[in-house]
């Protein structure tokens, strides 16, 4: 279990150097041997979770996926038009896809495996609604979000999409798992009002970035960022599809010792609150990391607030403590320079690094991330 901590910290270094900071030589050295680290990570993970065969396969799969996705990223930065031809699933982790496929038909059982997500609606719907209402001068009673276009990324069975639709918004829900979208589609088809307001699609965010650039008043990525491979790209895409002044809502799990102990060990392995294998601690995102990535993409973070789940009552509560679950609200700045200046910085730094590092192609890929 303590191996997990070390593991986590090496994973943390891995993530941090990918962020805007730390381009020093020490970090570069770490990057060179990062491929080795990745392999070490794999062996550590195998030791911690013995006997889960599909875990072995997905982890190997993940490492190859990472390398492939890095190659694709290089292409897309150097040749912007190549984005259209890049692999569709650049941030989607197929291991995660498999996990969710197994539970695709259980979304709408309120007392089933997704019960905590159903009761999380009591927090996240008012959070989204109230923050969006601040931007609407007069709202219609009964349909407060009328006229808002919302994108629900990773909508799953539509648990959060439907309440937003009931509040009057027109919502597009996307999910890479097609069984999920089938369940969601079927569930909303019985309600004539929701049928008109909600649209579901099987795709990832990157696939629709082009056609839906700057069209949404709000993007909701609830319990999603801890499942994507490439957080930076994902958040960039979120920013791209938002109108200037639009809101981004994220709920996710923090990466702390407490979240490992309660979120993985207790929730998954002991109490069975969350199905086994749903979460990987390495992919949890701390609010600081999230904030820094959001700020660097031109999104200004308005609120970060913690959420706590009481497994005995089944209810969620807001909390000052963000060490387990938390929700964040960020607003895309109305001024356009911010995202381009970030791009400049990134381009400049990649050119610099290219000059500094050795010719190892694998390292190039990690750098480009």
């Amino acid at each position, binding site marked *: 279990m303590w191996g997990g901590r070390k593991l986590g910290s090496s994973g943390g270094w891995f993530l941090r150097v990918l962020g805007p900071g730390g381009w020093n030589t020490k970090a570069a050295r770490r990057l060179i041997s990062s491929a080795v680290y990745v392999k070490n990570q794999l062996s550590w993970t195998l030791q911690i979770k013995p006997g889960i065969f599909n875990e072995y396969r997905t982890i190997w799969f993940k490492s190859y996926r990472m390398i492939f996705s890095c190659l694709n990223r290089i292409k897309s930065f150097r040749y912007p038009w190549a984005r259209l031809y890049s692999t569709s699933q650049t941030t989607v982790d197929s291991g995660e896809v498999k996990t969710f496929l197994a539970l695709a038909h259980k979304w709408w059982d309120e*007392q089933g495996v997704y*019960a905590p997500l159903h009761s999380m609606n*009591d927090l996240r719907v008012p959070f989204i609604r109230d923050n969006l209402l601040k931007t609407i001068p007069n709202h219609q009673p009964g349909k407060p979000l009328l006229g808002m276009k919302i994108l629900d990324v990773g909508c799953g069975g539509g648990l959060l999409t439907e309440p937003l639709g009931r509040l009057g918004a027109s919502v597009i829900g996307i999910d890479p798992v097609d069984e999920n979208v089938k369940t969601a589609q079927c569930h909303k088809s019985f309600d004539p009002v929701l049928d008109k307001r909600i649209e579901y699609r099987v795709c990832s965010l990157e696939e629709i970035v082009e056609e839906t650039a700057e069209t949404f008043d709000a993007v909701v990525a609830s319990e999603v960022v801890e499942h994507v491979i490439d957080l930076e790209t994902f958040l960039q895409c979120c920013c791209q599809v938002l109108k200037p002044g639009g809101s981004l809502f994220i709920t996710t799990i923090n990466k702390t010792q407490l979240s490992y102990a309660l979120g993985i060990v207790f929730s998954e392995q002991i109490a069975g609150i969350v199905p086994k294998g749903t979460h990987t601690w390495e992919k949890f995102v701390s609010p600081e990391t999230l904030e820094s990535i959001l700020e660097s993409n031109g999104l200004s973070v308005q609120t970060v607030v913690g959420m706590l789940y009481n497994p*005995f009552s089944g209810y969620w509560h807001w909390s000052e403590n963000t060490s387990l679950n938390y929700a964040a609200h960020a607003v895309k700045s109305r001024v356009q320079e911010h995202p381009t200046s970030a791009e400049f910085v990134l381009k400049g730094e990649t050119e610099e690094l290219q000059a500094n590092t050795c010719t190892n192609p694998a390292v190039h890929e990690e750098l480009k991330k």
Partner: protein
Amino acid sequence: MAARLVSRCGAVRAAPHSGPLVSCRRWSGASTDTVYDVVVSGGGLVGAAMACALGYDIHFHDKKILLLEAGPKKVLEKLSETYSNRVSSISPGSATLLSSFGAWDHICNMRYRAFRRMQVWDACSEALIMFDKDNLDDMGYIVENDVIMHALTKQLEAVSDRVTVLYRSKAIRYTWPCPFPMADSSPWVHITLGDGSTFQTKLLIGADGHNSGVRQAAGIQNVSWNYDQSAVVATLHLSEATENNVAWQRFLPSGPIALLPVRGPSGQSAHMHAAFPLHFLSAFFWFQGNLPRLFLSDTLSSLVWSTSHEHAAELVSMDEEKFVDAVNSAFWSDADHTDFIDTAGAMLQYAVSLLKPTKVSARQLPPSVARVDAKSRVLFPLGLGHAAEYVRPRVALIGDAAHRVHPLAGQGVNMGFGDVSSLAHHLSTAAFNGKDLGSMSHLTGYETERQRHNTVLLAATDLLKRLYSTSASPLVLLRTWGLQATNAVSPLKEQIMAFASK
């Protein structure tokens, strides 16, 4: 919480089969039915109030509500001269609910009677308890049921774009959705009416009385028993010109007899009271107590006399003079007093007066009855009932469908209005959170809140009824001392009044 743990272990509240009703049918084809957000089955006082509360709720502006009423539409063109014999005692909490959707204004424009004091005493002893509010607020209002119904109907007509009311329509079959979500089957409740039309709804509210069809169809267990009592109601004309703002109740061994003020001495019920400060008016009448009557109309009161079935049948069929004598003797006679109880009661009274010399509750004498309105005597049987569960997935019970109580405490319709208020509040919050209205998460909140209040009241009323049904000395002694002690402790009386007027 316990229910949640149980349900997490896999036991889901299923709708068991009951008689000819099938609990789980696939309705893959009937997608052309109108899907309502809420259907209220039963258009009585509580059902109509529920439909009004939802229709006027700000978060229900784009929702569709249907009210099903088996009877015809009651149109009250003009208020009749004779007062109806069915009246209800409306608590201040219920009045607040009715005014929240504008029905109370209609009632004020028609007629009602406010009362400030209530005297309850025993036939077997001198013990009495007097409830009154020091701050001169009204304790409650006596309103005819027809007047309330008319006010509710008028308010429903004003929101007919959101609330559809179907008269002469009775649901004959309810079909519940499967407890686990299935791909092809509709997740809504299907209702079939007598004329064959069908609807679907996301939430079915059962407000159809103590023989609730919704409750039976859902298979909800109902704890119920019949009291060996029937209630006789009548409209009485009083012989004196009292200000008539006191409610009287005497516990006879055969059952309680109550006199509720309906009309005051100046011939009007409440118009003047609404205009003038009440304390000024009652002071005026207090000093005028012995002047001959200057006004033309009588003071009216409504009688509710719960007694054994045979005696009730007798009372209804006897001629009017004998009936009036029976009522007067029920209030005035000391035949059930025994010396033992009298001395025991006097002892405690003396002890109380030593401890609390300042507060002496003046015993008032009830008014005597002059005559009874012709054809106003009716009887109906009494019983107790309580549903084990108020909610199921997509079903909620309110009013008499959920609980049925003895009229001795005047709480029956007030508990129903309390249910309406609580459920409307929970549904409003749920609608503003975009939740599925039939979801158990907020329905269990309503159930917990109301069951806590209603079970206490039901238990207390049943206990009082049983306690006062006997003339055995030990129990009479117990209740005499108990009543006197409660009367002496003002905070306790205030607590009781506060609980009952919610």
